[in-house]
C-alpha cells in the first residue's frame, strides 16, 4: 500500500518537472550568471601572467600575446613586503577567529539558559546595538583616544570579534540542539556552568561553532576598513590594506623614475606594475576562492539558523 503511494508520488514529481526546453533555457541562464561571478577572478589571474609590453599594446585581454612570470618574480624579489602582509593577515584571522568564537559562544550559551536571572538584561545588551550605533566618528575616537589602539593589531582584531547576529545564531542553536536535561544532569553531578560550557556544550555544538568560526575567518581575512582607519605602521599592514596602498606605492615609484634617470619604458620592464597589482589581487583571492566551496555547507547552515526568528 505504502509502496504504491510512493510510486504514484514519483510519477507526480515527474509530471511536475519542467519541460526539457525550459530546463535548457534555465541552464543557460544560470551558466551565464555563474560565469559572470567567476570570470573576473579568471581574468585577473590571466592579467597577472601577461607581460607588461602586451598590456601596454593591447590592454587587459583574455588572450594575451605574451605571457610571463615577471610579476610574480618581482613580488618574490620584494617578498618581505608580501610575506609580512601575509603574516599579519594570518595572525589577525587566527587570533580574531579564536577570540570571536569564544566571545560569541559564551554569550550565546548564557542567553540560551532560560532560568538565568539576567537573561533579559543581556538580551537587551545584544539587541540595542542592532538598532542603534554611535557611528564612524565616535567609534574611531573610542578606539584611538580611549583604548589607544592606533597602530596596534588589536585594533584589527577586537572591533569585529563580536556580532549580535552571530550571538543569536549560536543562541538559537544551543536552544534547539542542546537538551536541558543534559545540562541539568551535569549540574546534579556537581559540574559548574563554566565546566558544562567547555566540556559538554562546545563539543556537541561543533557544527555551529565551525559555522561561526568560518564567518569570522572570512570576515577577518577580508577586513580592510579598520586597517585603513587605524594602521599607519608599515610592519602591521594586512594584505587587503597592502592592496589599497600598492597602487599609490607603484605610482610613486613610477613618477620618481624620471628623477633617478630611468626612462619609463626601461622601468616598465623592471617593475611590471600592471601585472604585479593583479598578482597581489590573485594572492589575496586564491586562498578564498580555493577554500570556500568546501566550507559552503557550513555557511548555508548558519544562514538558515540565523533566519529563524526567536
Amino acid at each position, binding site marked *: 500500500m505504502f509502496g504504491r503511494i510512493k510510486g504514484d508520488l514519483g510519477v*507526480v514529481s515527474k509530471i*511536475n518537472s519542467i519541460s526539457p526546453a*525550459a*530546463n535548457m533555457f*534555465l*541552464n543557460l*541562464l*544560470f551558466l551565464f550568471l*555563474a*560565469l*559572470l*561571478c567567476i570570470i*573576473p577572478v579568471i*581574468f*585577473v589571474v590571466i592579467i597577472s601572467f601577461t607581460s607588461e609590453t602586451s598590456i601596454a599594446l593591447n*590592454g587587459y585581454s583574455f588572450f594575451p600575446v605574451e605571457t610571463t612570470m615577471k610579476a610574480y618574480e618581482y613580488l618574490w624579489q620584494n617578498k618581505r613586503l608580501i610575506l609580512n602582509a601575509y603574516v599579519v593577515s594570518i595572525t589577525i584571522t587566527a587570533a580574531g577567529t579564536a577570540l570571536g568564537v569564544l*566571545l560569541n559562544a*559564551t*554569550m550565546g550559551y*548564557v542567553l540560551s*539558559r532560560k532560568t*538565568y*536571572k*539576567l537573561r533579559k538584561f*543581556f538580551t537587551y*545588551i545584544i539587541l*540595542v546595538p542592532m*538598532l542603534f*550605533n*554611535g*557611528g*564612524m*566618528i*565616535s*567609534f574611531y*575616537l*573610542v578606539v584611538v*583616544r*580611549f*583604548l589607544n589602539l592606533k597602530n596596534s593589531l588589536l585594533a584589527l582584531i*577586537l572591533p569585529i*570579534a563580536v556580532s549580535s547576529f552571530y550571538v543569536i545564531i549560536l543562541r538559537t542553536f544551543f536552544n534547539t540542539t542542546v537538551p536541558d536535561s543534559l545540562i541539568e544532569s551535569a549540574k546534579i553531578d556537581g559540574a559548574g*556552568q*563554566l565546566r558544562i560550557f567547555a566540556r559538554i556544550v562546545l563539543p556537541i555544538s561543533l557544527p555551529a561553532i565551525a559555522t561561526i568560526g568560518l564567518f569570522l575567518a572570512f570576515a577577518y581575512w*577580508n577586513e*580592510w*576598513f579598520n586597517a585603513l582607519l587605524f594602521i599607519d605602521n608599515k610592519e602591521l599592514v594586512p594584505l*587587503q590594506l597592502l*592592496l*589599497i596602498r600598492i597602487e599609490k606605492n607603484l605610482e610613486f615609484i613610477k613618477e620618481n623614475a624620471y628623477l633617478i634617470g630611468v626612462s619609463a619604458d626601461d622601468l616598465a620592464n623592471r617593475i611590471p606594475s*600592471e601585472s604585479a597589482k593583479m598578482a597581489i*589581487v590573485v594572492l*589575496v*583571492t586564491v586562498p578564498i*576562492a580555493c577554500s570556500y566551496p568546501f566550507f559552503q555547507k557550513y*555557511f*548555508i547552515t548558519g*544562514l538558515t539558523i540565523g*533566519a529563524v*526568528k526567536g
Partner: protein
Amino acid sequence: MKRKFTKDDMELTILALPTFVWYCLFSFLPMIGIIIAFKNFRITSGGFLHSLFSSSWVGLKNFRFLFVTQDAYLIIKNTLLYNAAFIILGILIPVTLAILIKQLLNPKLAKIYQTAMFLPHFLSWVVVSYFVFAFLSTDKGLINNMLISLGEPAVQWYASKGSWPFILVFMNVWKGMGYSMVVYLAAITSIDISYYEAAVIDGATKWQQTRYITIPALKQIAIIMFILAVGSIFRADFGLFYQVPRNSGIIYDVTVVIDTYVYKALAGTGNIGMSSAAAFLQSTVGCMTIILANILVRKIDKESALF
C-alpha cells in the same frame, strides 16, 4: 517573582562578562560619543572622555550645514536612492533566482551554479574594485578594448557620471545575489513536498504552485530581510562607494553617500562637526525607520514582524 541570585546565575554572569565588556567598549561607549554632534569637539590631553565632556556645547550649530550647503541634500538623496534600489533588487532578483534554480532537472549542475554564484560574497570590495578596474580602465580595460575593436570611441568610465548609478547597482546585485539566493533556496527546500504533490493532483500549473505555495512560504524571511535592510537605509555600503569608484572626483556627485562623506572627516579633508552631525542623523533616523518598518509590518501581518 523575585528570586535569589544563585551560584548558577553567578557562573553564567562570569561567562557572559567578557562579551559584555566588549559590548560596552565597542557599542555603548561610541553611543555616548555620539553627543559630539552637539559639541565643538576639541581633542584634549586628558583622553577621549575628558575631551568629550570638556568640549563646549554648541547646540544645533553642527546641523546647520544641512540647510546651508548642497552637500546634505546630495548625500542624503544618493544614500536613500541607492539603498532603495539595492533593497528592491536585493529581494526580487534572489527570490526569482532561487525559485528558478530549484526547477533545474539536474541538481548537481544546480549545486555548481550555486557555488559559483556564492563566490563574490567572499571577496572584499578592495579586491572587487580591481576586477571592475580590469573591465573599466580607460586605456587598458576590456570594455574599451571591445568598443575600439567595434569601431566605437573609448569611454572614460571613471569620469562618466551617467554610468555610475548603473555600475554601482549592478555591482551590488552581483556581489549579493548568490548569498541571498542561498538564503531563499534554504527556505524553499524546507517546504513540505506534499503541498506541491497535492497541488499537482489538483491540476495546478507551475505558476500557480509558485504563486500559492512557494511565494507565501518565502514571505516571512523576505520581510525579515526587508525590515533589516530598511533599518540600514541611511547606512551605505562604505566599501562599494569608497573602493569601486576609485575616489574619482569627477563622479563625486553620483557616488558620494553619508558614509564616504563622514569618512572624509577622519581622513582629514572634511569637517568633524558636520560629519558627526551627519553620523548622528544616520543613527537616529536609521533606528526610527527600523522601528517604523516593524510597526507597519506588524499592522499588516503580526506573524511576520521582527520584534
